């Protein structure tokens, strides 16, 4: 007990709460301030590591959404393409043996019902299928760009990725409300993952910028 109270260098007695030997100035233990600083440093490291983990997860989600958009876009393209081509073949086989008069009547009926002649309707349907693919490819490229950007600027990149993701959900839901329920668990994971990445990226940047 008394051994602990003596200065290791000059054996002088140390007062309660003192960190330095009052006789020779020897530092016996770290000061409360130094202990607080050490605690602060450790906490800062663990907080920042937690933020970096969330940012990495968010980036992973952006990449996953990009890949899913690409694969989903290709999948729907081939499904819609074969379905459209089948419908076109079916309809063409029905009018294959028609006389020019019957064909003209068919076109007139078609025009009345859809506002398009047969050739226009075929172009329109094929154009829609190609357009859907183009839209999904552009979207996948946008997500991939955001994924790359999130490496250097995670805050704006993750926030814009979240906004774009919400926009796609909303636009799909307006086209077909049933789409909203499809894969809802994944959607919630993506939104929560991106949201916490935005929060972590903002706070991480502010902590890094602080003097």
């Amino acid at each position, binding site marked *: 007990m008394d051994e602990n109270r003596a200065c290791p260098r000059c054996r002088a007695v140390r007062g309660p709460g003192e960190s330095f030997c009052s*006789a020779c100035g020897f530092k016996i233990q770290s000061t409360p301030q130094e202990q607080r600083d050490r605690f602060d440093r450790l906490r800062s490291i663990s907080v920042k590591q937690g933020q970096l983990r969330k940012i990495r997860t968010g980036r992973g989600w952006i990449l996953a959404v990009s890949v899913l958009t690409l694969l989903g876009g290709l999948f729907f393209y081939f499904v819609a393409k074969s379905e459209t081509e089948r419908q076109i073949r079916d309809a063409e086989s029905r009018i294959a043996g028609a006389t020019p008069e019957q064909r003209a009547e068919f076109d007139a009926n078609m025009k009345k019902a859809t506002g398009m002649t047969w050739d226009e309707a075929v172009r329109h349907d094929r154009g829609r299928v190609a357009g859907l693919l183009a839209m999904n490819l552009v979207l996948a490229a946008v997500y991939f760009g955001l994924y790359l950007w999130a490496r250097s600027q995670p805050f704006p990149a993750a926030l814009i990725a979240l906004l774009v993701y919400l926009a796609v959900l909303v636009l799909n839901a307006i086209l077909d409300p049933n789409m909203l329920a499809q894969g809802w668990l994944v959607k919630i994971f993506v939104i929560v993952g991106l949201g916490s990445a935005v929060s972590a990226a903002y706070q991480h940047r502010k902590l890094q910028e602080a003097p």
Partner: protein
Amino acid sequence: MTDGATPGGPVPGSVPPVVPAGGAGAGACAACGRPIREGAAFCGFCGHPVGAPPPPAPRPRESFSALHRRVSREWEEVSFVIKFYVALLAIQIVTAVVIKAGADEFTAYLVADALLAVVTGAAAAMHWTEVRALLARPAVRPPLFALVLVAAFPLYGLIHAFVSGLQAAFHVEASRSLDAFEGRGFGWAVFVLCINAAVFEETAFRGVIFGILRRRVRIAETLMITSVAFAILHLSVFALVSHTLLGLYLGWLRHRSGGLLLPMLAHFLHNGLVLAGERWGTG
């Protein structure tokens, strides 16, 4: 816990008494101000030699905990932007879904407009000093004012051509904002689509959202985020790119003029030209 000598804690034992500062002892330490023991050569608390001149005061440093608390509070403020935006988006989605389900478009638009006004008004009231300053600022510099008036026409032309070109490429029928106001009078359309849209969208995006983000993040990020959010709120795939650019223009006006009046005017002119084009244009 089981250590005999707790650092910093009072330990019973025979120790020369500590003389309080200002007492009869050796007085207070020049560096840390804590009492110096009788006959001591160094301060026991900070190690400063007795009698030496005080060292320069260390720069006060924010502890990490305090910094972390401050940054979390700041984030709460920034995340208000996201909550506010999600509320606006929810109103738009519900309106679109209700209209798709067969509700009367005119009534749905009016209700949505009133809701948007209420939500934006509430957000503006929460940041009232800032929004009032933006609205009251009459610093409409003539060159910028002239630019807004002149640029409105080519801007409308470009956006209109871009959107209708995209719609044509994707074989989608061009949407007309006026259709919902069929038979209700042109005045309603001007009120809802020009005046309300300009006032409330600008207050929401260039006022509240821009203001909060600007204080916390870089100007380029503020512009980009507000513009993308603004474009998405219009719920049109074909307008996404063009309205992001429109949002950048309006945000730039807000940034340069430091007020809301110019972006409101530009927004009003743009929507007005859209309506005029639909009413009197060739379609």
